[in-house]
């Protein structure tokens, strides 16, 4: 197996170290091969870049602010910036990728868009860009998630998308992904599949990472304006599949002084049996077209993860992140449901910002990274990952909390 020379770029077969590749049935070969042979030429065409950048600016609301969170900084005794992806149109970073992919689909001549969604954020971001371009949109969503996420189902429908329940297997995100892949197999000519995270067969992980890399591209120049240096000491981001983390890390991957910290969802606790901490619990395996770390039984059946945050509730992780974990380039921590809730309420009170539950996991890790951490993360914290009073810490605030108000209200009632 050939290895990569950089963290940013997978090799020609789509491998980041040991992870990646394209484990797809022959029925998908033509579609994936077409994408693989064309995506870089299309994305880096000046006309594409112009339209992509214009839409990010005028439609999605970029650049998103890099906000110096003064009260939060004081609380933790260091300098903390929040990258405000929560201020993007549709409420999260997901739209960066869907804008990129809808423009790509247009240039591939595809007339029909399919997507999978868990909590519905990626489904909404996909339905949004399909409305923008007047293209048919079909979103697969687990039957259980449709019940749990009614407001996002309504948003997708209002945007003109067809939401199809995934009724197979465990009826959640992984099954919605299976159904979307099956749809693509059955519609090999006119359909483009907009995957929502840095998962799936090569070239999806690389392609989605490139579209999301605008996050770290902005962090670099924004930080330079504010501090005189492009490089923070730490970048923190939550990881389910890992798209906001890939975007926030991207332009720092080859900067060894920047400590990258990925925070997974520990659910009720890493070893509680109700967790989504894939790097802690997963084993190498193949899921949804790539080799990565996968939560599975000893017999190789994929298990259902748990997190209070639907966006982190995925039994795999993007191959780039599996490689960052394996090579120790990134520190992988995890926060429980309870720790994430506390972090959400803390940010609301300290800064007047209500974060998404996903992003709250990244905020929760500030507790573990303090020089003397009173709360131990369930994953051990490497000493060099901790911050000092002189650190410059960037937290990717990947989404806003509107969609999570029911959970937050319940938490307030229980107090």
């Amino acid at each position, binding site marked *: *197996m050939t290895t990569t020379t950089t963290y940013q770029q997978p090799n020609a*077969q789509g491998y980041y170290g040991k992870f990646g*590749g*394209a*484990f*797809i*049935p*022959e*029925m998908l*070969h*033509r579609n994936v091969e077409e994408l693989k042979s064309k995506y870089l030429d299309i994305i880096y065409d000046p006309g594409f870049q112009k339209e992509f950048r214009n839409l990010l600016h005028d439609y999605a609301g970029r650049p998103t602010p890099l906000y110096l969170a003064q009260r939060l900084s004081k609380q933790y005794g260091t300098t903390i910036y929040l990258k405000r992806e929560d201020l993007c149109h549709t409420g999260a970073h997901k739209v960066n990728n869907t804008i990129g992919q809808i423009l790509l689909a247009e240039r591939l001549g595809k007339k029909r868009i399919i997507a999978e969604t868990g909590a519905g954020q990626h489904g909404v971001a996909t339905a949004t860009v399909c409305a923008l371009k007047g293209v048919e949109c079909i979103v697969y969503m687990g039957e259980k998630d449709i019940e749990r996420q009614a407001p996002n189902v309504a948003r997708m429908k209002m945007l003109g998308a067809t939401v199809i329940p995934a009724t*197979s*297997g*465990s009826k959640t995100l*992984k*099954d919605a992904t*299976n159904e979307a*892949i*099956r749809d693509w*197999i*059955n519609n*090999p000519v006119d359909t483009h599949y907009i995957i929502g995270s840095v998962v799936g067969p090569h070239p999806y992980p690389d392609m989605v990472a490139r579209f999301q890399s605008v996050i770290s591209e902005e962090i670099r120049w924004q930080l330079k304006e504010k501090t005189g240096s492009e490089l923070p000491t730490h970048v923190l981001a939550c990881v389910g599949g890992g798209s906001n983390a890939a975007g926030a890390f991207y332009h720092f991957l080859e900067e060894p002084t920047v400590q990258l910290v990925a925070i997974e969802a520990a659910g009720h606790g890493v070893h509680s049996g109700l967790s989504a901490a894939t790097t802690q619990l997963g*084993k*190498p*395996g*193949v*899921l*949804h*077209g790539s080799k990565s770390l*996968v939560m*599975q039984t*000893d*017999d*190789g*059946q*994929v298990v259902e993860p748990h997190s209070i945050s639907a966006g982190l509730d995925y039994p795999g992780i993007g191959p780039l992140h599996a490689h960052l974990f394996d090579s120790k380039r990134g520190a992988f921590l995890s926060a429980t449901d309870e720790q994430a809730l506390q972090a959400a309420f803390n940010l609301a009170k300290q800064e007047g910002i209500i974060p998404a539950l996903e992003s709250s996991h990244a905020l929760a890790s500030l507790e573990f990274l303090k020089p003397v951490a009173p709360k131990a993360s369930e994953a051990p914290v490497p000493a060099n990952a901790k911050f000092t009073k002189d650190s410059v810490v960037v937290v990717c605030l990947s989404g806003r909390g509107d969609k999570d108000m029911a959970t937050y209200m319940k938490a307030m009632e229980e107090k």
Partner: protein
Amino acid sequence: MNRINDLFKRKKNDILNVYVTAGYPKLESTVSVMKALQDSGVDMIELGMPYSDPLADGPVIQASSTQALANGMTIATLFDQLRDFRKQVYVPVILMGYMNPVLQYGFEKFCQHAADAPIDGLILPDLPEYEFETEYGPIMQRYGLDFIFLVTPETSEERIRKLDSLSTGFLYAVSSSSTTGKDKDMNAVENYLQRLKSMQLKNPVLVGFGIKDKPTFQQACQHANGAIIGTAFIKALENTADVEGAAKKFITDIKS
């Protein structure tokens, strides 16, 4: 003796390969269903190893996998069931499954146990040719297991030739780009099968996906060495107390 090569040497046409999920409908059905299929005149059996996330399969076969997993089927259990099965089943048997459970079992150990059974070949639809050539193919070859690649109407001629050169046993022609269990327009499929035939490939060709009854089987056999039936057979086993009887009736109807 290679049972697959031996079969194609003896018989060039109308080869009937039937798919069944191991451990379906009951955990202990595996060998008795294979025996019933063989006794009804099936030429070859494709035995599915159930997986939680079978991407290339439609809802009927996935439901049978879900049932088999609920019955307690695992790869280890399957190899236990296959101990001594050759006393009863002499037709070629191919294991079909997905990479993840096989990797978890241990790829080499899996090949060793399959060869011990003895199984004749493997179909792993999500194992691509790059990984086959660089990593997994040599292991299968070491244990004498055939590996069967799939081709579809979307596969280019150059790629068909490549996959034919890598395949041993036979080549699996998916009748149209789709998951299993969808109805196909058989007339639209004919050009594609004719194209395959005119390429004079190294391997015999069996057609799968969309073959469900006597007319579709016969039509497929006009342009290929035979055909594979999966979904329609699984449906025939649903909700029946007499599994072996249902299997025999299904095959008899096709071969009559």
